């Protein structure tokens, strides 16, 4: 298989498959949990309160508001920098947006300056290293960490490492860009099947607990 065919494969059918699995998987998770709650756990809906869902989301999305964020400043900075970069860099990278605008979507949207995206990539990689080291040396994290948790971090870091190398033309660009695309696709496709799914389940649990604490128990949940 020539490099060109391979490129077409990973940017064509494989990309479609990855996005389909990612979006379909997340939707399925959302629908399944909602169905399960309706059928087997109806008190969840009985006490859901929009105001407190939003309040809880907001309070936990701002660094240093929640008590636990304030107790561990370094971790807080790292986790916020990580999550913001992790989402913003791939979505708003000029090269990615161009693929959307010239390709399927035909729309263009706001992009990050390349230099900013480049730094964000570095941040994601460094944060992954931090998380891995933390899982090795902080006893309460180490105690509940197994090999899968490290694989998860590698899975997340790989598209960023390869993207960084490709952008800076380190190594064989053609190989690197294909590795970048493939690792990104594997990452996307794995989200619904691993704890990376906290992307959708996290806000659902947060919202529910925000309602319980806010609407039922009349107390802060942060």
């Amino acid at each position: 298989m020539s490099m060109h065919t391979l490129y077409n494969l990973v940017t064509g059918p494989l990309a479609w498959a990855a996005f389909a699995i990612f979006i379909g998987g997340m939707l399925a998770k959302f629908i399944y949990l909602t169905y399960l709650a309706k059928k087997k756990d109806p008190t969840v809906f009985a006490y859901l309160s929009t105001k407190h869902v939003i309040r809880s989301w907001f309070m936990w999305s701002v660094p240093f508001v929640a008590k636990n964020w304030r107790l561990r400043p370094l971790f807080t900075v790292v986790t916020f920098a990580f999550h913001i970069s992790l989402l913003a860099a791939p979505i708003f990278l000029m090269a990615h947006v161009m693929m959307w605008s010239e390709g399927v979507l035909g729309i263009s949207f706001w992009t990050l300056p390349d230099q900013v995206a480049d730094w964000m990539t570095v941040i994601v990689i460094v944060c992954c290293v931090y998380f891995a080291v933390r899982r090795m040396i902080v006893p309460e994290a180490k105690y509940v960490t197994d090999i899968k948790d490290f694989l998860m971090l590698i899975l997340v870091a790989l598209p960023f490492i390869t993207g960084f190398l490709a952008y800076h033309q380190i190594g064989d660009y053609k190989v690197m860009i294909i590795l970048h695309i493939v690792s990104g696709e594997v990452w996307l496709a794995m989200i619904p099947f691993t704890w990376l799914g906290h992307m959708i389940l996290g806000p659902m649990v947060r919202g529910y607990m925000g309602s319980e604490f806010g609407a039922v128990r009349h107390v802060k949940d942060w």
Partner: protein
Amino acid sequence: MTVDTQEKKIIEDPGIDQGAAKLTPEKIAQVINTTLGTENLARLYAYTKTCVHCGLCSDACHYFLSHDRDPKYSPVGKIKNTLWPMIKNKGKVSVEFMKEAARIAHTECNLCRRCVQYCPFGIDTAFMISTVRRIVHKLALTPQYIQDTAHSHAATMNQMWVKEDEWIDALMWQEDEARDEFPDFRIPLDKEGSDVYYSVIGPEPKFRTQLIYQAAAIFHEAGVDFTMPSGTGWDNSDMCMFTGDFEMMGRLKRDHYESAMKLKVNKIVMGECGHAYRSVYDMGNRWLGWREMPVPIIHSIQYFYELLMAGKIKVASTIDKLATFHDPCNTVRGMGLHEMGRAVAKAFVPNMVEMYPNREHNYCCAAGGGVINCGPPHKMTRVHGNKIKAEQLKATGAELIVAPCHNCHGGLEDIVHHYKLDMEIKFLGDIIYEHMVKTKAVEE
């Protein structure tokens, strides 16, 4: 840490040990799979799938902090040693594993829900530990002492094997006693159409009868139109909620509410108890499918606050000791009553100092969640497991702890004693009764 491990090995509990002797791996698997496969599925699914194993819940737990940050005491560590293997192995776990799970779930977690406030997702570890206890209950592995109280609930509808005549006698005895102080004093039984139905916990008629006297005296002085039932329903406590015997929990709560409804009262006021509040306001009603309460239920903290603010009880004298306020989990993380509690305490004890952390972030007493009810065999588990509470109390320099919850009293007394803190512990009712203006009392 090594001392701890050894200590754990020698804790024997006939409830756990004799129950385990009758178990087979097949029975364990069947019970685990039916429970995890049919009950509260959505929350269980969401909590277990969302957890990223970060350990951020750890700093919330008094057991973890008291054991020099030993990770097996962290909230997620306890889930790792109980629920995770049950799910992962599809119920195929050993009898020894279940014994350990029963011990962890019943004596190393107070279901205080502090960790819920520390998890960035709000994962409810207390809910998962409750689910473990539910499995333990179905396998008949529940620690003996708390199982005895659950049996009492089932046989007598109260926690302490109090017979009906003993209950009525306890009330009449207190009425009789109080008439020396307040000549017109009554504890009206079954008075239909009263404003307030006052409910207490089993231990009050059994061995803390003065608390009934005090509460009734406060109501009498405040001119409250109240009643207490002569039949079952008077006990708002609920150990079945903590053993995972939810069927019995439902029966207890229905009896409690129906007894109030029969008397056509406007509201139920309950004594200074934390867990009972969780049972009547949070857990029991849900089991019965009641979103709202059929009769409004008000905790004493709130009721005393309302009486004080309305000027129905007035301050005659104040206590000049330095005091601190202990927030019970179930009245703060369960209802946010921290400011009201402080306002009442401060009116009588102006010299108050905060413990840190406080309010909704307060450390648990380590007695709640049914842990103290597991009895003497497990006493040191909770006392050693709450060294952090002793440190927190000591740092205040206070001589008096105001704690509006029975379980907290039990737990704090043991801690104060073991760590030699020389602090007194009082209920709000204690200080109000002693220091309110008594216009209806005989003059001395």
